[in-house]
């Protein structure tokens, strides 16, 4: 008999739902947390999906939306039937367990915000299945309503069923871009074209033929320069990567389908060891083939790791409750996405230049980022130019992205770098000729979403945290009577 364990699954991704329902059917007490359906206020943070500045009016009816969201995901119904405790529209803002220099957490727990209140949900095992987020590089006009990421686009189309757009331009030709086109076409939305900086079609010849049959033009060896419009997207300018004149296309929406990156904020902020995966073009938690991370009883389930193949072994590992062994990483992601993202950024930077706003929260350009310029509110510069390359290499990182964060504020704004941090790292890599793996990524911090103080505040203070709260190390009385033997 397997002793049932309390398992918290964060993320109702495909893997998260599957794992939750299987674990529940295996007799475990499972809680599944997902931040969707998001309230309008939360969607406006562009995390995890990049919705951009236009949020359809239909979203204001949050109850109707919640219903649609439930009905559009049969995997959730499956979880419900299996007896999973579903916490939807709930933000897992942090996860905590005892470890070095934090020995008073007690039972491992997830910090949860639901509506206007919060709680700490205890578990024996934590499974992080937080899925993927949009990768959205900067370009002139990227702040215009009508620009969104492919995950947000699919959410508008299918999850929330409130897509607003009739003539959409799609950036990228990956399988995910093609998938978006299929869904959009099925709903009668016009696709004015697809843009591809390379000579080919990333999703392969069959997909290319399908797109051709739909009569959708593919602009090869072209990149995006800018979006234009008075109050929303009206046009997009493309430029051949080999040089030459711009092509201006009429469109009302731009779907950025260049790539998606794993949501690693929770494992990273918890302190799971990370490794750079060149195939994915991202840092990933180190896992073994069961999805086990470097932290005890914390699993990471992702299509960037072993994917579905990890689910059964993960359940078996949980049943054994064995100690964490040596991690044997799954093979590197073979998507080639890393190189693709890099190529896009290189062509967009060549075409758009460094005056483009890189960090939308703090309004900082690529040039000011790369030059470590103090942010505008300081009205000043540096006495002498300084390079962000501080390390000489070997086993040590050569660039600390945190240094750039601190000095330029790129990644310090309300999105906490969710929109710009990956492009920022790529820019550093391109500009200074330094491998991505030699750039220590900016640190991840809790809460992983911005949260109202009133929502996150403890209403359950213990006597110690309420009455005995100390400022600094002593209460003043204690200062007056220092222990004997001390001057």
């Amino acid at each position, binding site marked *: 008999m397997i002793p049932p364990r309390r398992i918290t699954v964060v993320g109702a991704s495909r893997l998260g739902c599957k794992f939750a329902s299987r674990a529940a059917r295996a007799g475990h007490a499972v809680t599944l947390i997902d931040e969707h359906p998001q309230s309008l206020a939360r969607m406006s943070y562009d995390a995890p999906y990049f919705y951009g500045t236009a949020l359809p009016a239909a979203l204001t009816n949050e109850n109707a939306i919640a219903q649609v969201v439930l009905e559009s995901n049969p995997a959730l119904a499956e979880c419900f039937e299996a007896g999973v405790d579903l916490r939807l529209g709930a933000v897992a803002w942090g996860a*905590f367990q005892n470890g*070095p*220099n*934090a*020995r*008073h957490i007690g039972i491992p*727990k997830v*910090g949860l915000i639901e509506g206007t209140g*919060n709680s*700490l949900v205890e578990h024996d095992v934590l499974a992080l299945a937080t899925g993927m987020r949009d990768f959205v590089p900067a370009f002139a006009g990227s702040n215009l309503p009508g620009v969104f990421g492919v995950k947000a686009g699919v959410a508008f189309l299918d999850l929330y069923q409130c897509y607003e757009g009739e003539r959409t331009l799609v950036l990228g030709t990956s399988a995910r871009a093609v998938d978006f086109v299929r869904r959009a076409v099925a709903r009668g939305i016009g696709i004015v074209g697809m843009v591809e900086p390379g000579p080919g079609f990333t999703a392969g010849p069959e997909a290319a033929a399908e797109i051709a049959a739909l009569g959708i033009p593919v602009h090869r060896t072209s990149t995006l320069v800018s979006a234009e419009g008075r109050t929303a997207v009206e046009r997009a300018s493309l430029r051949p990567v080999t040089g030459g004149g711009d092509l201006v296309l009429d469109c009302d929406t731009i779907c950025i389908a260049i790539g998606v990156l794993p949501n690693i904020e929770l494992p990273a902020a918890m*302190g799971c060891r990370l490794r750079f995966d060149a195939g994915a073009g991202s840092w990933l938690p180190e896992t073994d083939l069961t999805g086990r991370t470097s932290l005890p009883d914390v699993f990471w389930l992702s299509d960037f790791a072993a994917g579905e193949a990890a689910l059964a072994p993960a359940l078996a590992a949980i049943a054994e409750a064995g100690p964490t062994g040596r991690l044997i990483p799954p093979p590197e992601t073979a998507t080639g996405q890393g190189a693709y993202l890099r190529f896009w950024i290189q062509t967009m930077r060549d075409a758009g230049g460094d005056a483009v706003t890189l960090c939308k929260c703090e309004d900082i350009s690529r040039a000011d980022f790369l030059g470590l310029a*103090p942010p505008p*509110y*300081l009205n000043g510069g*540096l*006495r*002498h130019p300084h390079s962000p390359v*501080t*390390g*000489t290499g*070997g086993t*040590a*990182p050569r660039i*600390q992205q*945190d*240094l750039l964060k*601190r*000095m330029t504020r790129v990644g310090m704004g*309300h999105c*906490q770098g969710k929109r710009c941090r990956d492009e920022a790292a790529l820019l550093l890599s391109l500009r200074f000729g330094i491998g991505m793996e030699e750039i220590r990524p900016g640190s991840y*911090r*809790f*809460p992983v979403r*911005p*949260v*109202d*103080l*009133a929502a*996150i*505040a*403890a*209403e359950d*203070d213990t006597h*110690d*945290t309420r009455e*005995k*709260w*100390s400022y600094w*190390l*002593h*209460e*003043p*009385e204690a*200062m*007056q009577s*220092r*222990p004997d*033997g*001390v*001057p």
Partner: protein
Amino acid sequence: MMENFDVIIVGAGIVGLSTAWRAARAGARVLVLDKGPTAYEASSRATGYLSLRGETPEESPLAQAAERLWDGLDEELGYPTEWTQKGRLWAAITPQAFDALQITFQSFQRTGIPFEFIDAKTCRELIPALTPHTLGGIHTPRAGHANPQRTSQAFAWAFQDLGGEIREYTPVLDLLTRGGRISGVRTPWGEIHAGSVVLCAAAHNAALLAPLGIDFPVAPVRLEAFVTAPLPPLFDQAFIAHGLAIRQTRRGNIHVNGGPHEWTAAGVATEMPKPTTPLVRNIARRLFEVFPTLRHAQMLRSWAGIIDVTPDQITIVHAFDAPKGLIAASSAGHGFGMSPSLGLALADLALQGRTDMPVASLSLARFADLPQDWRRIWNWQPGSYNT
């Protein structure tokens, strides 16, 4: 090739960087070594106050020397520190806190700094957003705050502008001595020699000094902090109330730190984990108990930092007689504000063996009678949690 410097500084925190800049300015060949990146520990995690040390008047002269140096530091370094000299206010919002403030005030009055006990109305004139429950406070128009990350980096860049070198990810594993003098340090990549070595490795100093038979009494402790999203200007004083240090940054974020803290241990060169805990929920609640308008401010990011605390919470500046040329410092949890004068004192000691800075009473001599197991007596041992 054997490398040779006038001064090696162990630790690229704000204390080490300030010392390095001063020493380089005096013409010395200086090398700074750190086990990790520049200013990645306490120095980039502090609130950013200059405390004038009313709590420990013994070291107030050094803090006041720092205050004089803070003015004009931006121009001297050539990089912005966000120094804001708008005074400091301690407010009480509960009767217990009010009583405690009155005791604190007695200590403050021993400093000669113009501290004034003010009533609730005056507190709320200074900071209108304060809760109506405010009962009174202590105010001084002096002191101020700055951005710890910018200030640390400003020292680093100013030092590099003078030709100084900072070597990251180069831990010092051992101190080398010859004939009663310090002769250099050993790193994983070999020995580096210098006539003088200054230990600015915070709590790690103790582990570096232990093999020389020297007891360096510091205890590391982990503290938590967070910032909110930027807000319109609310106040610009260095502010303390309800067990929290609360500062509004130039950018507009509310920066808050305080509360229970966990004692830890420091090895020679291992990075200490700095996890945050659900404590931010309690800090959040206290924050809007002080500033009711912040109820709907948004928490953006939290972090923890580790500081080195001395038994009497007073700075240590010590130049050893044996081995000669070795100097060690601990800033006892308020090294950010103190860094300009502390660095000056340490650089003087390294280059001339003496200093005009008021540090004579800050040596290790005061701990002659310290019991061996002071950390146990204080309950400051690794794992104990102060509430």
